[in-house]
């Protein structure tokens, strides 16, 4: 059992390009001092080495007592650039943290850095980095490196903190997709939901759900209840459309790569179409070969459908079973 734990994370450092040049000059001055026995060169050498030393200590101070939090965006789409927010809390009492950089690791690959020029003591700074992935599905966020080159840009010092998280990347949305007109369904097949993105306010409210639009927030009720409450709208029509995605992958496909490419395109089309239908007030459900998405009422956010599509995977058709051959026993 470890009794003593290190109180701080292990720092790693490397010399920057400027630092390497600085070290080169320092070595040159050292060599000159030894060669010439000129005490003033020894003095300059002392100053250069002190600068390196002070630089190392100060960069440590800049990284001291920092809290990092990741703020994930509500929606991420494949193929579209989004901003990921990182909040940095400087818990020091007196010292600002200057020139801090955080580098996230997404699926084992470094992202662009989020840069904080200065975070005053006791305050929180928010910076963001651009994030783009071409792949839908679950993206795992793992460690985050916190770096600084403060104060002189000679040494880059940093540590790695483990901030596990995951985010669902929705399918890529296409610019345009055709959405054939739908007819209201009658009888048992009609959707039971009576609310949706219609033009009329239904007079009722409900609690806010992720994906609801801000313009629907009923501020008075929100203020009185202390929780976000949104207006419900009368659904203009009771139409329902069921979109299908073929996710059945043949056992021996001729060109699996081409099929997968087509599969991704079809998912994008369905995601785009679903959003378009929902905007029109049509309820949408997506059906694949092995699963069905939740039914989303028209006028409501398409997130359940997108989430379903983001996680949809191809399923392989089972090969037909061959009949077992029974060997006859020899007499």
């Amino acid at each position: 059992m470890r009794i003593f734990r290190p109180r701080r994370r292990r720092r790693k450092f490397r010399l920057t390009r400027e630092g390497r040049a600085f070290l080169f000059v320092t070595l040159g001055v050292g060599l000159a001092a030894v060669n010439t026995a000129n005490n003033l060169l020894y003095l300059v050498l002392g100053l250069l080495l002190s600068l390196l030393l002070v630089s190392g200590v100060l960069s440590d101070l800049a990284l001291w007592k920092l809290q990092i939090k990741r703020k994930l965006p509500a929606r991420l789409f494949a193929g579209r650039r989004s901003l990921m927010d990182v909040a940095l809390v400087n818990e020091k009492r007196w010292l600002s943290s200057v020139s801090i950089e955080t580098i996230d690791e997404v699926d084992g690959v470094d992202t662009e850095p989020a840069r904080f020029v200065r975070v005053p003591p006791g305050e929180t700074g928010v910076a963001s980095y651009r994030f783009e992935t071409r792949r839908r599905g679950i993206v795992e966020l793992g460690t985050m490196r916190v770096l600084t080159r403060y104060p002189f840009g000679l040494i880059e010092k940093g540590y790695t903190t483990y901030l596990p998280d995951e985010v669902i990347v929705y399918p890529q949305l296409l610019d345009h997709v055709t959405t054939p007109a739908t007819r209201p369904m009658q009888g048992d097949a009609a959707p039971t939901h009576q609310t949706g993105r219609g033009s009329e306010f239904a007079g009722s409210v409900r609690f806010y759900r992720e994906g609801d639009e801000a313009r629907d927030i009923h501020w008075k009720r929100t203020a009185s209840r202390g929780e976000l409450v949104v207006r419900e709208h009368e659904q203009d029509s009771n139409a329902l459309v069921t979109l299908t995605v073929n996710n059945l992958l043949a056992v021996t496909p001729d060109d699996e790569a081409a099929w997968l490419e087509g599969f991704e395109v079809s998912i994008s089309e369905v995601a785009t179409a679903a959003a378009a239908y929902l905007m029109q007030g049509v309820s949408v459900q997506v059906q694949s070969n092995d699963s069905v998405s939740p039914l989303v009422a028209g006028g409501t956010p398409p997130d359940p459908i997108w989430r379903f599509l983001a996680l949809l995977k191809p399923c392989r058709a089972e090969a037909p079973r061959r009949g077992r051959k029974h060997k006859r026993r020899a007499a």
Partner: protein
Amino acid sequence: MRFAFAHKLVTYLFAGLGLTALLLGTTFSPIESLLLVAAFVASWFAEPPLLDRPGYSRFWNVAAVVFLLIQIGRAISGEAMLSVGVQYAAFLQISRLSHRKTAADYQQIVILGFLHLIAGTVLSAGLDYAVVFFGFVVVMPWMLALTHLRKELETQHGADTPMLRGELESRELATPAFFGGTTLLAIPLFMLTAAMFFAFPRVGFGFLSNLGTRTQSVAGFGDDVELGGFGAIRDDPTVVMRVKPKTRPTPPPQSIAVRLRGTSFDRYSEGRWSRTQATGTELRHLQDQYVVFRPPEPEDQEYEIILDPMQEAVLFLPDGTVALRVPPTVRAGRDRYRRIMQAPGLDIRYGGRVEGPLTYKAFVTPKQRGFPERIPRRLRKHYVEVPADYERVAALAKRVAGGASNPYAQAQLVERYLRGGGNFRYTLEQPDTEGKDPLHVFLFEAKAGHCEYFSTAMAIMMRSLGLPARNVTGFLGADYNPYGDYYAVRNGNAHSWVEVLIDGRWITFDPTPASGQVFASPSGLAVKLRQMMDAMRVRWADYIVEYNIRDQVKALRGFAAWYRSLRGGRRSAESNPGDGSGDEQDFAPIPFRPDWRWFVAIMSTFGVGVLFVRWRRKRRRQTRAGRQLDPDRDRAVRLYLSLENSLRSAGHARPPDVTPIEHAKELGRSGFPAADEVREVTDAYLAARFGEDGLPLQDYHRLRHVSRSIRAKAKRPPTA
């Protein structure tokens, strides 16, 4: 303060200190210095939109090349390389200051400032360099931090964007707290610098040392001297020497009339004294003790003299000096004793270079009256030479000293005549000779002059009487400096007197009237400040410029003794005289004597260390890759890293979520000019890294070359 303004201000402080370090040397003439300062000030006003004009950048680029060619030409034509190089370094800084736009320009200013500081170490070792150095200690953290922040802002917002301009105009970064905190950095920085300075083992080998220590010129100590030379420096308060008598009354008198002899002149002609060049002999010495007349004795008075570097390597000695103690220089842990040469005329000069003030001790006998000196036969006649047409001077000498019975009395009579009996008066004004002989004008017309006229008159008058005499130059008098506890000898104390050979001994006579010998001790605030500065200069020279391995050993022993005393070993420390500080340990053997073998050993160790670090880094990289890579795979990884660097430079970096093969395909689809090369390198990488194919060294080098060429190819415009 706005960030942009704060950065500009600090940049000018930093660059100004660097240029001052260059100006401290003697490489700039006054006009060049003036031009440099004017250009420095003018560059402050170089701002956009002037900086954005394309012709402006071109002008500075062309000017840099033209100036370089001029300097090369000057160097070839015999101009000192140091001077030429320093002037070009100053020009480059002015060029950068006039052309500062991005963080990269500011970084270049930092680099040039550093180089100027380093160059200053060989240009000046005085207190002025100390001032510049401490200025650097304070300004450097500001400069480096602000330049770093500017670079970060440029990286974040892009160069020349509205966002960047907004940040540069904001007042949130360059706050008083920022400057206060960064100024406080100077304290640990200074302490660490001092600790490292004193701790570094002084293993100096002494090659290339002292390329340009500044020396000062003082009239009267060269091979010849013209009448009137001393008059020009009479009011010069520059301290040239400090004298510390070992025994002196308490409280110390404000000034003492110490006479410090420099050199003498034997020939006089047309108003000019000169010295006959003669090969001197080396003074006998035992370690650091040099015998002028005899070894020192306990009753001898001891003077410590700290002499600033002069153009003439003359040792100034108090009257009656019989022996000297000149400390050796320490090079590579060995004592190098100076050669002290004595030429006829008691002209004593030191050999070897000086990096700062030279400290030595003179032992003076209290009862000596004059000193004997063996003069070579061929030189003796010079001491009685009187120029032609000096009959009137000879007649005057006979008239003044005719009644005396012995040479000493004759000399005294002539001395008294000049000092008061002849109605001569002391003045610094040059008599108007109107083409006549200056000595005749002095003796018979003006009857006024300064010490040189008086001493020349007496020397020539004594020679007219048949007595060997010579003109002697040196310093007379010194003022007490309470801050440094020594007597300071100023340039204005320069003096001239006469030595007459009587009964085989050279006896000193000073015919200058008292008003020309005694000067009121200067006082006032300015003088006090000057005294403080001089005391600091002496300490700077003592503790910094002259610091050597012997001092280190001494300090270590002192520290060890102090430590033992803390632990109760006071008695043992006291019983061991070698541990205390004192003269007896000044020349204790140096325990560490580095020579070229040490140098080779240190450099070899360093080289082995670098190789070890590189090997460790490679191992770590391989471990991080998950397995020990065989040479082929390792080469493949390095090859692909090189390709990625080239693609990044070409603006087509591989996104993190794209595989190498996907990226190569994507580049092909987008019409990237070097797509084929990228594909070739990528295929080779994948085959060697994950397949069974190897990557022989020959292929590796070829593909590396291909990957490097991608950058150039990508930037080349497509041909029609």
